[in-house]
């Protein structure tokens, strides 16, 4: 290979960069936000192939507040955190909970949504007879009693949970001795197995459950028992970013504060998930 050819190759390789990546202490002017694109109604891909949903609308709103240019891309769930750390994009907004475990690897903004985790079961099952409950238990205090009440209703049942999620950690920790846990790569896989009768219950974010249960196939199923927040679920759903991007974090936090204060998050969440998921303060 001649020198000139090598230079051409090197140039070709450098033009393959993924846009301008925000640098640690420079004020970013352009960022790339990644989402899963397959988690309706939080983030999904519409029939025209465009990304849409609560987090897409919120991301655009936050970018307008920060006055920076944003590109939103979709990435498979499993690849989100590794891709962020190697720099393929700068921010994750994909219904991702802020948890101590994740904080070991990446950083998060303040939460922009708090969405309780809950069970969905057949309406005529023991737990199903409890029906939908608006109760919310914060894992940091009174939730243990609530869990104690649920345990006998779920004894020996098979519960489907998405792998590598906080939901799984929760079920393992609090129901691991009571139920049989089955892990799924995606939420719609455990939804299918619930209808197929292969599992007795699923545990997921209540807003996602509500979206699933709105389908006619799920007419005989219901969200049952209380919702759980705090504790293992961390502080709620936040935007993930690299630890060194502290300036970007400040900017995003300010933008989220603004969106909470002027009711934007309330408006967007009521539009997409039919409830207000605005976090406290």
């Amino acid at each position, binding site marked *: 290979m001649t020198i000139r050819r090598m230079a051409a190759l090197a140039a070709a390789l450098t033009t393959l960069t993924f846009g301008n990546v925000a640098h640690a202490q420079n004020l970013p002017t352009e960022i790339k936000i990644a989402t899963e694109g397959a988690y309706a109604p939080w983030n999904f891909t519409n029939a025209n192939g465009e990304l849409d949903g609560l987090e897409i609308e919120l991301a655009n709103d936050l970018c307008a507040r920060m006055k920076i240019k944003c590109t939103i891309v*979709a990435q498979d769930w499993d690849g989100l955190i590794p891709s962020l750390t190697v*720099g393929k994009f700068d921010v994750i907004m994909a219904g991702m909970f802020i948890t101590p475990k994740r904080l070991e690897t990446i950083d998060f903004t303040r939460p922009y949504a708090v969405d309780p985790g809950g069970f969905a079961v057949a309406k005529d099952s023991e737990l199903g007879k409890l029906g939908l409950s608006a109760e919310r238990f914060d894992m940091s205090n009174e939730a243990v009693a609530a869990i104690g009440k649920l345990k006998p209703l779920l004894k020996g049942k098979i519960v489907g949970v998405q792998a590598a999620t906080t939901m799984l950690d929760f079920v393992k920790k609090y129901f691991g001795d009571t139920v049989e846990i089955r892990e799924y790569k995606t939420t719609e896989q455990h939804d299918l197995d619930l209808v197929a009768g292969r599992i007795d219950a699923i545990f997921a974010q209540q807003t996602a459950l509500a979206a699933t249960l709105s389908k006619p196939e799920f007419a005989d199923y219901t969200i049952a028992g209380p919702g759980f927040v705090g504790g293992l679920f961390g502080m709620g759903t936040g935007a993930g970013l690299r630890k060194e991007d502290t300036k970007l974090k400040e900017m995003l936090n300010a933008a989220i504060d603004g969106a909470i204060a002027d009711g934007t998050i309330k408006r967007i969440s009521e539009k997409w998930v039919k409830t207000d998921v605005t976090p406290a303060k």
Partner: protein
Amino acid sequence: MPECFDHKKGFARMLEKLHLLGFAEGGRGMALLGAAGMTLILSVLGFALGTVFGALGASGGLSSKRVPKALASAYGTIFRGVPDLLTIYLFYYGGSVALTAIARSFGSGNFVGLPALVTGVIAIGIISGAYQAEVYRGAYLAVEPGQFDAAKALALSRTQILRLVIVPQLLRHAIPGLSNVWQLVLKDSALISVIGLVELMRQAQIAAGSTREPFLFYFAAAGLYFVIAGITGQVFRTAETRAARGIMHR
């Protein structure tokens, strides 16, 4: 009531949802077809690159020299032994980390990464090459030794022997095995969905998660995979028939 899932009603519901697969407003037919095209491109390029690695691997494996033989053996053992998904992840994340490090050493601080398609083609090429190497090696050994002697007797040069006598016969023996590897490549291409390339599997997953209609879209994807496998399988069968012209079957 949920005692038994009403399959008949379930099927009727599915028919009602068929418009989601259509090409009109709100239908995702075009997206699925486009993704099927991406699957085909990825598989064909990956398979073609695998041919190069496979040929190198086979010639190493057949070599009487120790180093090429050991390298070829290590290549085959590693990439047939390690889970394909792991290989894909290694190339995707490891590749961009390495490239970024190289770019940094040249003074550029920006992130450098190969597009998902390129990474996917390289990963599939290396994996399928490990399998193809064994196919070519076996096919080479299946060529009658008398063919080498006859070619030498005609005073052909080494390259002429390979090009004119051995490779055409070798390919004939290789086609059934290659057809097998091709099916493997087609299914491996679905694993590339994890690195963000929107091929058929990822598109089906996106549509399933976005509409909450997993059955419909996974069925459609299965159908499209079946069509691709059927058509390309026919290509291999035709090639096999053509290659066998004039051969006496024992």
